């Protein structure tokens, strides 16, 4: 058997992850063609590469189907209850930086902070007869953040992509999404609330607390951790 390492299956996140491991003497790559989701590992014995969607890696870790996985802190915190009990943060990889934020239209000159958002939401509900809509895919994180900060009279609407466009399309009044430079937000005439930063996320190597290991696998894990300089 072998230690299973889950890595995002495409794009910059995959390439940067490969770079990070290569710099530490572990060469990861796709087996066969670019379209095939099988991986190969060189430079260490007993490690198997599993290419997965970044969004599925938290679940695979918590189910113990992979021993290690690279994904964003945002996804782990959104998808796993008591995430610290299910996975261990081994290393922040220094890329894939993104902030989970709340943004509203720039035209809302009266709204600068969460306090304002709460007051605007109350007025919006009175005026329109429904609760102010915030588009997001981070339902749990946003709900907890707004509860902690005492914001009421809002509702979350699900948006799995192009979230910044929902305000213009009038399917939401505000958005809660990840951003790295804020460019897309500005292009869509949105501004970040001054206290609207919920979480700073980056690509992180996690270890599953649930994945079983035999003696052989434990030895491989120890060797891998040493090779990566994380011991």
């Amino acid at each position, binding site marked *: 058997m072998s230690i299973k390492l889950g890595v995002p299956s495409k794009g910059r996140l995959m390439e940067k992850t490969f770079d990070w491991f290569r710099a530490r003497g572990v060469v990861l790559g796709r087996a066969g063609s670019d379209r095939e989701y099988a991986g190969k590992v060189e430079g260490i014995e007993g490690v198997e590469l599993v290419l997965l969607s970044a969004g599925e890696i938290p679940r695979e870790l918590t189910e113990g189907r992979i021993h290690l996985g690279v994904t964003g802190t945002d996804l782990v915190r959104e998808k796993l209850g008591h995430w610290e009990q299910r996975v261990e943060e081994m290393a922040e990889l220094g890329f894939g930086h993104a902030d989970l934020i709340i943004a509203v239209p720039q035209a809302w000159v009266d709204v*600068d902070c969460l306090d304002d958002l709460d007051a605007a939401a109350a007025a919006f509900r009175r005026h329109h007869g429904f609760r102010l809509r915030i588009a997001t895919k981070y339902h749990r994180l946003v709900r907890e953040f707004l509860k902690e900060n005492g914001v009421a009279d809002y509702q979350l609407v699900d948006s799995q992509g192009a979230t910044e466009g929902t305000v213009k399309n009038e399917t939401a*009044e505000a958005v809660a999404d990840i951003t790295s430079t804020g460019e897309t937000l500005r292009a869509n005439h949105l501004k970040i609330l001054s206290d609207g930063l919920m979480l700073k996320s980056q690509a992180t190597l996690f270890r599953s607390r649930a994945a079983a290991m035999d003696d052989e696998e434990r030895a491989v894990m120890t060797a891998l951790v040493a090779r990566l300089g994380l011991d």
Partner: protein
Amino acid sequence: MANRTPEKAQVKACAAALREGFEAAGAVPVEAPVLLSASALLDLYGEDIRARAYTTSDILRGEQMLRPDFTVPVVQMHMAQGAEPARYTYAGEVFRRQEEDEARANEYLQVGFEIFDGTDPAAADAEVFARVQSAVAPLNLKATTGDIGILMAAVEGLETSEARKAALWRHIWRPARFRALLERYAGRHPVPVARKVLLTSDDPFRNAGPEIGMRSRDEVAARIEALRADAATPPIPNSDVMLIEAILKVRETLPFALEQLRDIAVDMPAILQAVERLARRMDAIAAHGIDVQALEFEAAFGRTHMEYYDGFVFGFVVEGRPDLPPVATGGRYDALTRVLGRAEGRPEGIPAVGGVIRPGMVVELGGWA
């Protein structure tokens, strides 16, 4: 959990017996659907309910929730068709999402007793409390009572703008937010820079960018006007803030609490009526043979997690076991009947009070042989 999980059959038998007890007190047994329309619950509680209730959906009815309690469906049923006065009892499963503590049950039986009767609210409060108390008496639980109505009366009586009162009201059940608002209205914190800039600008919309989304420029302008009016409102006197803080600190046995609240009412006459309601309730509870001298009262009790209660509140817990959920809870929810009565053409609502017991806890704690 420290105790073994009780057998379901035993819990059901206990639930049936508790319900029979309430039936003997004249309550009509009622049923409620397990699946409730999510929109009614979301309108009442906002998104927070999603952290407590399981949501499911189908393509025809849209979002449904597994009932997190019976109060909402029972009030809906009563407002739609109930003759008054009325008293109801029920026994059935409720479902609660647990995101923090896996050891807590996410599905358990609840037995409840509800009185819809405006003739003598103090007597109704006392009767619900006494019946729940006698049902759990063998367990030697610690009872705590409270009354959200006193804080509400204090807010109502503040000498400030209606807008500020409405904002405080809206956050009665969010203590941190309530406090922050109160301190801001008292002028304890400097006005944030962004707010100052906005209110002193000759053209607040100069860098506003295009108008997008459903919240119109008129709505933004209206809020700026409201902010200007608020900036011109004199601060709430520090003495009033201190009186509200004093109310929230009251934590005593009932007779001493009453004495403290009467002292506060000398400086804050707005709470006098609410305090006298508390006095009448105390006498009514004593008339049931309950020792009110030993009964705990906390003015802030139930403020964080019992949000539809707006008057009397109570809970029975196992002393020294904060890990265990309360065995029984209850309270008065007059405002809820007004909110849910609106859809039935009865916006005036009806004074209502009720309580629930968890038979699973009763069995687990050995109160059912």
